[in-house]
C-alpha cells in the first residue's frame, strides 16, 4: 500500500502558502483587532504574491501528486495565477470599501483566501470528488462574503438567493457525478475518458443523463441563460468588491471547470450537445445584452453584461477546437481584469456615496478625472474596441468560430456586441458630458481617491491595455496550456 510522500505536496505548494496566509490573517485579527485593518490587507496581498511566485516556479515542472489526483499543468497554473491576480485586485479594492461601510471583520480576508484556495483545487484536480470539494469551498466562502453586511437587508437577501440556488445546483452536479460514476465506474477524469471511449458507451442513458445534469449545474455556476436568474440579484446585493471578485474569479473558475470536465474530459462530439450549447450561447448573449440595456443601476447593468460576456465565451465553447479553447482562456482572463476594474470604480465614493445609478456617475470628469479615465478604458475594453484586451479576446473567439464555419453564430455575436455599445457608452457619456448637481452637505474631495484602490485600478487598466497591445505572451501561454489538456 503506497503512502503519500512529501513529493506529493509539490503541486500543492501555492495552496499551502495561501492557507498559511489565511491562518496568519486569522491570528493577526485575533491579537491586533480594530485599528490594524491595513496590516491584514497587506498580509493577504503578501500571501497572494508569494503564492503567485510559487505558481510561476511550478510552470513546466509537470508536477503531479496524490495518485495523479492533482496536477500542475499549464492550464491549471494559468488559471490559478489569474485567481491570485484577481485576489490581489479585490483586496486593493476592499480596504476603503470595508471602512466606508463599517464591515469590521478580519475574517473577510480569510474568506477571500479560502475562496481562492477552493478555486485552485477545482482547477488543478482531475478527480471529481476534489473538484466538487473545491467548488464547495469556493461557493460557501462566497455565500458568506456576499452576506457579510449582515445588517443590510439587501446583502442578506443576496446571500440567501445565492445559497439556495447554489445548493440547488450542487444537487444536480452530484446527481450527475453519481450517474457518470455508475456508467463508468470511476470518478477520475482520465479513467472516465477511457471508459467512455468504448463503443456504445456514449449511448448509455446513465452517461447521457449524467452529463446533462452536470451541464445544468455548470450552467448555474457560470450563469448562462436560462440559469442566470440569480446573477443580477446577487451581484447587486453583494458588497461591490465581492461582486467584482465573483464576476471575475468565480466565473473564470467555473469556465475552467467547464473546460476541464465537459470539454476535454467527456467527449461531447454528438450533435445534440452542439445544438444545446449553440442555443445556450445565443440566448445568453442576447438576454444578457437586452436586459443590461434596460437597467438604471450601473451595478445591475454590469451584472447583466457579465451574463452577456459568459455568452461570448459560450460561443467558443460551441466551436470547441483547441484554438477556440485557448480563446476561452484568453477571454476569461481579459474579462476578469476589465470586469474587476469596472466594478472597482463603483467601490469608490463619489459625492459622499457609493455610486449606483447612471446619474451618480455625473461630475466624475471634473472631480475625479483619473477615475473617469480609468472607467472609460474599462468600458471601451468591454465593448471590444481595438488596443484593449476585450478586442483581442472577441477577435480570437469569432475568428475561431468563422474558421469552423459557424457563420450565423458569429453574426449574432457581432450584433450583440453592437448592442452593448449603447449601454457602455452611456456610462462614458454620463462620466464626461454631465455636470451633476452636488448634493447638499456633500464633501467634495477632488482627486482624493483611496491609494490602495487607485493602485489596483491603474494596475487593472494597464493590464487591459497591455493585453490589447501585446497579446502575444498570453495567447501563447493559452495555446500551450490547451495543449497540456489533451
Amino acid at each position: 500500500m503506497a503512502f503519500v510522500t512529501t513529493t506529493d505536496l509539490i503541486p500543492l505548494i501555492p495552496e499551502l502558502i495561501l492557507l498559511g496566509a489565511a491562518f496568519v490573517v486569522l491570528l493577526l485579527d485575533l491579537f491586533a483587532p480594530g485599528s490594524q485593518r491595513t496590516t491584514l490587507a497587506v498580509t493577504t496581498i503578501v500571501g497572494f504574491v508569494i503564492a503567485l511566485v510559487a505558481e510561476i516556479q511550478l510552470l513546466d515542472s509537470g508536477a503531479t501528486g496524490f495518485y495523479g489526483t492533482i496536477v500542475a499543468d499549464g492550464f491549471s497554473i494559468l488559471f490559478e495565477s489569474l485567481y491570485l491576480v484577481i485576489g490581489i485586485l479585490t483586496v486593493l479594492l476592499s480596504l476603503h470599501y470595508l471602512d466606508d461601510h463599517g464591515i469590521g471583520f478580519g475574517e473577510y480576508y480569510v474568506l477571500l483566501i479560502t475562496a481562492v484556495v477552493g478555486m485552485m483545487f477545482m482547477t488543478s484536480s482531475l478527480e471529481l470528488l476534489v473538484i466538487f470539494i473545491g467548488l464547495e469551498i469556493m461557493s460557501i466562502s462566497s455565500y458568506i462574503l456576499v452576506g457579510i453586511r449582515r445588517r443590510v437587508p439587501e446583502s442578506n437577501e443576496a446571500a440567501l438567493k445565492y445559497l439556495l440556488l447554489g445548493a440547488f445546483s450542487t444537487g444536480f452536479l452530484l446527481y450527475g457525478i453519481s450517474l457518470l460514476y455508475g456508467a463508468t465506474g470511476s470518478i477520475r477524469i482520465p479513467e472516465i475518458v477511457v471508459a467512455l471511449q468504448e463503443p456504445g458507451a456514449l449511448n448509455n442513458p446513465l452517461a447521457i443523463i449524467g452529463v446533462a445534469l452536470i451541464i445544468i449545474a455548470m450552467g448555474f455556476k457560470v450563469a448562462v441563460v436560462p440559469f442566470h436568474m440569480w446573477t443580477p440579484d446577487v451581484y447587486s446585493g453583494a458588497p461591490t468588491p465581492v461582486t467584482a471578485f465573483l464576476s471575475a474569479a468565480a466565473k473564470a473558475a467555473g469556465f475552467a471547470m467547464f473546460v476541464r470536465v465537459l470539454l476535454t474530459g467527456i467527449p461531447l462530439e454528438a450533435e445534440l450537445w452542439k445544438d444545446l450549447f449553440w442555443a445556450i450561447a445565443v440566448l445568453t448573449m442576447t438576454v444578457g445584452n437586452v436586459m443590461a440595456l434596460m437597467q438604471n443601476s450601473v451595478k445591475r447593468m454590469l451584472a447583466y453584461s457579465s451574463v452577456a460576456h459568459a455568452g461570448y465565451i459560450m460561443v467558443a465553447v460551441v466551436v470547441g477546437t483547441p484554438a477556440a479553447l485557448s480563446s476561452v482562456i484568453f477571454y476569461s482572463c481579459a474579462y476578469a481584469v476589465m470586469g474587476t476594474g469596472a466594478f472597482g470604480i463603483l467601490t469608490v465614493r463619489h459625492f459622499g456615496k457609493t455610486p449606483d445609478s447612471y446619474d451618480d456617475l455625473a461630475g466624475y470628469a471634473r472631480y475625479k478625472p483619473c477615475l473617469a479615465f480609468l472607467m472609460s478604458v474599462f468600458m471601451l475594453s468591454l465593448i471590444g474596441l481595438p488596443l484593449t484586451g476585450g478586442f483581442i479576446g472577441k477577435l480570437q473567439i469569432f475568428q475561431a468560430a468563422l474558421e469552423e464555419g459557424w457563420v450565423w453564430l458569429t453574426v449574432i455575436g457581432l450584433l450583440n456586441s453592437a448592442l452593448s455599445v449603447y449601454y457602455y457608452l452611456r456610462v462614458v457619456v454620463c462620466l464626461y458630458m454631465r455636470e451633476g448637481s452636488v448634493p447638499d452637505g456633500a464633501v467634495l474631495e477632488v482627486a482624493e481617491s483611496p491609494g490602495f484602490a487607485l493602485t489596483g485600478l491603474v494596475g487593472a487598466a494597464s493590464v487591459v491595455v497591455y493585453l490589447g497591445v501585446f497579446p502575444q505572451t498570453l495567447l501563447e501561454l493559452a495555446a500551450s496550456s490547451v495543449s497540456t489538456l489533451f
Partner: protein
Amino acid sequence: MIPISHVLVLSALLFSIGVLGVMLRRNVIVVFMSIELMLNAVNLSFVGFARTMDDMTGVIFIFFIIVVAAAEAVVGLSIILSIYRTRKTLNIDEFNLLKW
C-alpha cells in the same frame, strides 16, 4: 439481491420530490430541507452503484457529501437567521428587495 434499477428509480423519485419542493414551497427552511432530500437521493444512488460494481469509491463519496451538506446547512441556517432578524418572515416571495 436488491435490483439496482429499483434503487435508482427510488433515488430518482426522491430527487424529483426534492426538486419539486424547492420549486413549490415558499417557506425558506422547507426549501432548504428539500435540498437536503435531493442530496440524500444522490447518496442512495451512490450506494446502489457502489454495490452493483463492487467498488468503494461511491461509499467514500457519500461521506464527503454528508460533510458538505452539514457545512451548507450551518451556513444556510445562519443566513436565514440573520435575514429573519431584519425581515421577520420566512416566505421566499417576500424577499423581494432585489427583483428576482
